[in-house]
Every structure is written in structure tokens, then in C-alpha cells.
């Protein structure tokens, strides 16, 4: 986005403002001086009995009227006002001036939103702020469970930052069965890191002992991995220059911490990314399209408020693609349970309704695939599940 014109417009406001300020200062200074001059005039004439303060004051009055301080200020103020309104107009032109244009006036439950915010704050490790929020918003502490869970996760991650795996291993051992079920090998990965940590600190015996007790349960499934690790024992103290140097690269710590956070959330039944963050990010991407839509829908505000489906596609990045959406290339309709995607014998896929139409509702009559020369039959079409 080209911000330079906006910056220039703002700079010109600042310039005009400085000008106006200094002019005001000058004017006040000028008036003060005139008054002071008159003052000293009167005072010096204090012993002259014939002096007439009224005359002197009258002179001052005419002088000040000549200066016409207020008219003076008006001009600069006007210029400043012009610069300011220029800037405001530019902002309105360059940005979407009202992003609430596509807002639907529906009841957005504050209580639900507050709960979502509170759990977002906790899962982003802003525990104190989360507590403060719950307190201030008078939300019941139904999400306290969530807080303790995430507190545990951040304690584990914090310890990992200082190369202490004890809490992580404790968690992995407690959740051994669950982790196995999801097919995660994070427990072994943690043991591996611990093993290498012991080895790097130089104690071969201790490492060997550690390996024996902790690798054994994984032997059947991760045989190669463990072999490699045991071979490291030969290189105690100089793993850096061994063929296994990549095993001790410090990036493993950060990677494993990420993986642990993912597995931790997974076991909690939570997503890895904060759902609030994901939704707002999707909103940021989608909103421009909706606002443009509103521009063409002017006058159909009522229609918009009751629409069941958006009239235009809102393109989000692939990171927001959580479901397979099949759109029939013939009818342009989204597939659903009552109109599932069907693959014809040539491999092209259409929706069932389109196939019924193409075959003229005759299941034995062959018809031509709209995308290739193949002749296909309804009976040979296969329903797909994405």
C-alpha cells in the first residue's frame, strides 16, 4: 500500500500547525509588548500632573486594533483547517472508511465472546491478564480448568528453554497410553534429547544407563533410531565432530518444543492455534471482499441481513481450508449429502444431479463425459468421499 501520500499529507498538517502556533505566539507577544510599552509610558509620566492616561490608553486601543490580532490568526488557522480536512479525506479515500458496513445486526452474545477471549489469553500464556479480564468482565471461572492445563504446558515449555526436560518427561510418561494411541513418538524424542544431553555433559556410563532403561520399551518400533543413538556413545565428548553431529544441533530443542505444544493441545482436545486468532485472521482476509460486495449491494441491505449463503466466494489462504469442498464443474453447485460427488468411469467427477441430467434420467443409456470423449454410463459411476 502506498503510504507516502498519506504521510506527506500528515506532514503538511504538522507544518501548518507549527506555523499557526508560532503565529499565535508572536501575536500574543506583540500585544504584550504594546501593553508594556504603554505601561512604561504611563509610569514614566507619573510625576507629570498633566498626563492623561485616558489618551495613552486610547492610543493603545487604536494600535491594537490596527494589529487586528484575531483576523491575523484566522488566515493561518484556515490553512491548517484545509490541511486537516485534506488528510481526513485522503484517509477516507485510501482506506475502507467504514468496515462495519457488512456487519450483520445479529445478537452477538457478549458472554460467549468473553469466554473465547479469556481462553485465548490463557492459551497464549497471558495468565495474569486473563485473570484480570475474567475479574473485570464478571465472567464465571468456568475456564479455570483451561488455565491450569495451559499453565502446565507453559511450565513444561519454559523448562525446556533452559534445557530441563524433567517436567516434559513426566507429562509424556503420565500420558503414555494416550500418546501411543495417537501414534505420536514424542516420548521417545524426549528421551533421545535427554540421552544426548547427558552424553554431551560427558558421562558415558550415565548415558548408557539412561538409554537402557528408557529406550527398551521403544526397541521394537524404533530399532534403527535407537541403534544410531547408542552408537553415539562411542563419541562421548566430541559428538560435534562425529557423523552424528546433526543429532545435537540446537534446533532440535525448538522443534521438539513446538511438537510438544502440538501434542499437548491435541490431547486436550484443543487446536494448536488459538481459534480466536484463526477466526480473526480469516476475517481480515475475508472482510475486503465482503465490503466490496456491500458496495454493489447498496439498497439491498435487507436482503443481506437474511442471506443464508454468501453470494460470492471469499478466498482464504490454504491455511484456512479445513474441509473438502467439491463444486460441480457443470452445475456450479456445492456437493452435499443429497447431491454427492460422483466419479465417472473416465475419472472425471461431477455431482449426482448433473449426471442424472446428462443421462436424461436413464441409467443404462450411455452419455458423453463433458470433459473428455469417453462414453460413460450411470451404473458405472461411483460416489466419492473426500
Amino acid at each position, binding site marked *: *500500500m502506498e503510504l507516502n501520500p498519506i504521510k506527506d499529507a500528515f506532514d503538511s498538517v504538522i507544518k501548518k*500547525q507549527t506555523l499557526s*502556533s508560532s503565529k*499565535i505566539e508572536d*501575536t*500574543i507577544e506583540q*500585544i504584550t509588548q504594546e*501593553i*508594556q510599552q504603554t505601561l512604561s509610558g*504611563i509610569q514614566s*509620566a507619573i510625576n507629570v500632573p498633566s*498626563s492623561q*492616561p*485616558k489618551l495613552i*490608553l486610547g492610543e493603545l*486601543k487604536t494600535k491594537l486594533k490596527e494589529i487586528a490580532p*484575531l483576523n491575523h490568526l484566522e488566515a493561518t*488557522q484556515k490553512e491548517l483547517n484545509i490541511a486537516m480536512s485534506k488528510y481526513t479525506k485522503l484517509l477516507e479515500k485510501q*482506506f475502507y472508511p467504514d*468496515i*462495519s458496513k457488512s*456487519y450483520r445486526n*445479529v445478537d452477538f452474545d457478549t458472554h*460467549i*465472546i468473553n469466554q473465547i477471549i479469556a481462553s*485465548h489469553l490463557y492459551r497464549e500464556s497471558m495468565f495474569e*491478564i486473563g485473570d*484480570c479480564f475474567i475479574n473485570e*468482565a464478571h465472567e464465571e471461572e468456568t475456564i479455570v480448568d483451561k488455565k491450569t492445563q495451559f499453565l502446565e504446558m507453559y511450565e513444561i515449555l519454559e523448562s525446556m528453554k533452559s534445557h530441563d526436560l524433567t517436567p516434559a518427561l513426566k507429562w509424556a510418561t503420565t500420558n503414555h497410553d494416550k500418546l501411543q494411541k495417537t501414534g505420536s513418538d514424542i516420548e521417545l524424542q524426549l528421551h533421545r534429547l535427554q540421552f544426548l544431553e547427558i552424553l554431551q555433559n560427558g558421562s558415558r556410563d550415565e548415558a548408557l544407563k539412561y538409554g537402557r532403561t528408557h529406550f527398551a520399551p521403544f526397541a521394537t518400533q524404533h530399532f534403527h533410531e535407537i541403534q544410531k543413538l547408542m552408537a553415539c556413545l562411542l563419541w562421548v565428548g566430541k559428538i560435534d565432530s562425529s557423523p552424528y553431529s546433526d543429532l545435537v544441533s540446537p534446533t532440535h530443542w525448538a522443534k521438539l518444543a513446538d511438537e510438544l505444544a502440538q501434542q499437548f493441545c491435541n490431547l486436550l482436545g*484443543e*487446536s*494448536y*492455534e488459538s*481459534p480466536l*486468532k*484463526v*477466526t*480473526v*485472521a*480469516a*476475517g*481480515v482476509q475475508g*472482510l475486503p471482499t465482503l465490503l466490496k460486495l456491500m458496495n454493489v449491494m447498496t439498497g439491498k441491505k435487507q436482503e443481506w441481513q437474511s*442471506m*443464508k*449463503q*454468501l453470494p460470492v*466466494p*471469499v478466498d482464504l489462504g*490454504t491455511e*484456512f*481450508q*479445513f*474441509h473438502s*469442498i467439491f*463444486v460441480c464443474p457443470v452445475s456450479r453447485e*456445492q456437493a452435499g449429502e443429497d447431491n454427492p460427488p460422483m*466419479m465417472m468411469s473416465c*475419472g472425471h467427477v461431477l455431482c449426482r444431479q448433473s449426471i442424472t441430467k446428462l443421462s436424461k434420467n436413464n441409467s443404462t443409456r450411455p452419455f458423453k463425459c463433458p470433459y473428455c470423449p469417453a462414453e460413460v454410463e450411470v451404473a458405472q459411476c461411483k460416489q*466419492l468421499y473426500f
Partner: protein
Amino acid sequence: MESNTNGNSAVSNATISSATATSLPSVQGAVPSSKLTQLTESLKLEHQFLRVPFEHYKKTIRANHRAVEKEVSAVMSTLSDSGDLSQDDAVKHLNSLVSRLQGLKRKLEDGSRAEHLQAQRCKARLDHLESAGADNISEWNNTRLKRILVDYMLRMSYYTTATQLAESSHIQDLVDIEIFYEAKRVMDALRNKEVAPALAWCADNKSRLKKSKSKFEFQLRLQEFIELVRNEKNLQAVTYSRKHLSPWAASYMKEFQKVFATLAFTCNTGCETYKVLFDAKQWDFLMEQFKQEFCRLYGMTLEPLLNIYLQAGLSALKTPFCYEDDCPKEDPLSQESFRKLAMPLPYSKQHHSKLVCYITKELMDTENPPLVLPNGYVYSTKALEEMARNNNGTITCPRTRDVFSYSQVTKAFIS
């Protein structure tokens, strides 16, 4: 020959991509242009972010200027009023004017300090927008979310949390806490059934409220009138209305008459039309009204930014599949709270198929085309190839547990 044409097309591809890179000079080349347009579009949503501090700045400038005008013209007029004075009195008089001007000067110094701070804030916001680029986008987005949250908290009057969040993230310059504190004073007073601060606020912003044809002040006055009637100070109520309500009568005759009728009905009335006027809910209504006027004056959206973004996001994400039991956890709409919020919103629409592999959650496109098992279930090539590699060429459908050989899979063509 063939290799030659390939080479040519590679070159022309390269020139095309370099051309797009140069046409967007502000950001580094390697980023896909769609990401860049997305970034630009998202920055365009930040009108309020620049507008609000500027309105604040403007307000301070105007207030300072008004002070100057007032003082200077006062000095001028007292000078013209001074008639026949003795020498001593003239000296005294002039001295008082000088000290008055000096007072004004001091006041202006404070004023210009405030102006300067607010100008800095406007500048900081411009710089923050400019700093958004491909290399810091995730951090920038995190800050944006925090800004949105602070905005929400301020509008909901959760001032302590808002301040804490802003301070802990060092984004005080990027949020409008000070401005909302101005609203807090009025809101607190209205909560205590006091209108004075709200009226003072109206007086402060008189010209702008008039421009937007606001009747907020009228509503405040009506409430004051009602309170007088409630306390059976009828005579006072009449004098009050003569002074404060009559100027509005021309534009809002009906309401004016209705409220005036309460003099006859008193606060114990059973008549519905007049009973509501004595209801404590009227104060909530005034608070709501004030919030709207306040937001409008500063160029803010009437709804919290969070609600706007959440609605847009939920509409864009909402599909019929979100409400099924096997909705993946990563979809925010797998959560009950998000589903409830999305209930009254429209479903998203797609013009083109977008298929996600059930196993790898990756997009199935020409790079990673979808393959069909004999049972009709579809998975990505990558997922099935890996499964076959690890299991000696057999594939187990993760959803039906059917076992097939990799040779049985067929390609599906999705257009």
C-alpha cells in the same frame, strides 16, 4: 530443439516473475504476489487506526485555538471598556492584562505539549502500518489481534485489562486508551444517574454534534426533566423545560409533548406510555446512546472491531461440514462457542473445488492429485504413496479399515 524451447519458456517465466516483483517495489521479491495484495487489502481496513488519534489531535488544536480567541478578545474588550481611569488604576489595569496574557502563554505551552504528543501518536501509527511486510507478518498480525482485543475491552469498559494488555505488549501508542478514559468519566456518571459530565461533553463538542444532527443533548435534558418530575419538583421542572427543552421543541415536538405530559401523570403512573419514561432502563439507553455518539465523533465503528472481524471470519469459514462430528479441531467452528456465534451468519460460498486430504490435511491439487480407493474414499497421492511404502504396497483406508493394494487406486480428475 525441444530442450531449447524449454529453456526459452523458463526464461520468459523468469522475466514475468521479475516483472511482477519490480512492479511491487515496496516488498521483497520472493513472496507470492497474492500474499502481497492480501497484505495491502488488510491494511486498507485500518481506517480507524489512523483516524481516531487524528480526531483527538484535531480536537486539541481546536481547543487551544478557542482558548486563544477567547482570551485575546477578552483582553481587547476590557481595554475598550476602560473609561476614565486615574493613573494608578490604569497601571493596575494594564498590569492585570499583561499577567492575563502571560497566563494564556503558559496555558498554550501545555496545550502545544499535548498537541505534540498526539501528533507523535498519529505518526507512530503511520509508521506501524508502514512496518508491515512479508518478513514480520506473523508478529504484526499478533499485534493487530492485541489491538483488536484492547479495542473490545475499552468499549466494554474493561479498562484495567485493556491497560494491562497494552502495557505488557508495549502497544500503548497503537491503542486509544486515553480517549476512552474521556468516555469513562461520562459513562460512570451516567451509571450513577448524573448527567452533568455528559452535558459538559456535549458542550465541548457542540458544533460537531450539531453537524451530525445528534439529539443526544436533548435526550439528556429530557432525562433531567423526568428526574425533576420524579421528585415532584414540578415548578422547577417547568422552569427547566423553559430554559433547556424549548430550544429543541421545534425539531422534536412529539417527544417534547410526551415528556411534558408526565407532569400530569407523575412517576406512579400506570399508563404504559409514560411509565417507561420513568424506568431505570432509560439510563442504560442513554449510556448506549452516548457510546454511539462518542464513536461517531472519533470516526470509530459503532461495533467493536473484534465483533466485525469475528463475523467476517466466521462467515468465510462456515461450511455445512463444520457442524458435523468429525470436524477437525483446527477449524474454530469445531468449538461449540464459535458454532453458536456463527449460527445467524451466512455460509461461505465456493466457485471451485477445494479438496483437503483427510490424512495429511494438505490441499489436493495438480502437485498432489487426489487418488480414489475402490471403496470411493479419496486421499492425496502423497499420503497413499507413503502408506504403501511403509506397508509393502498395501493401503488401509483410515475411515473404513478396508485394505487394498496400491495398484488398485485410480486417479480422479477434478476440474
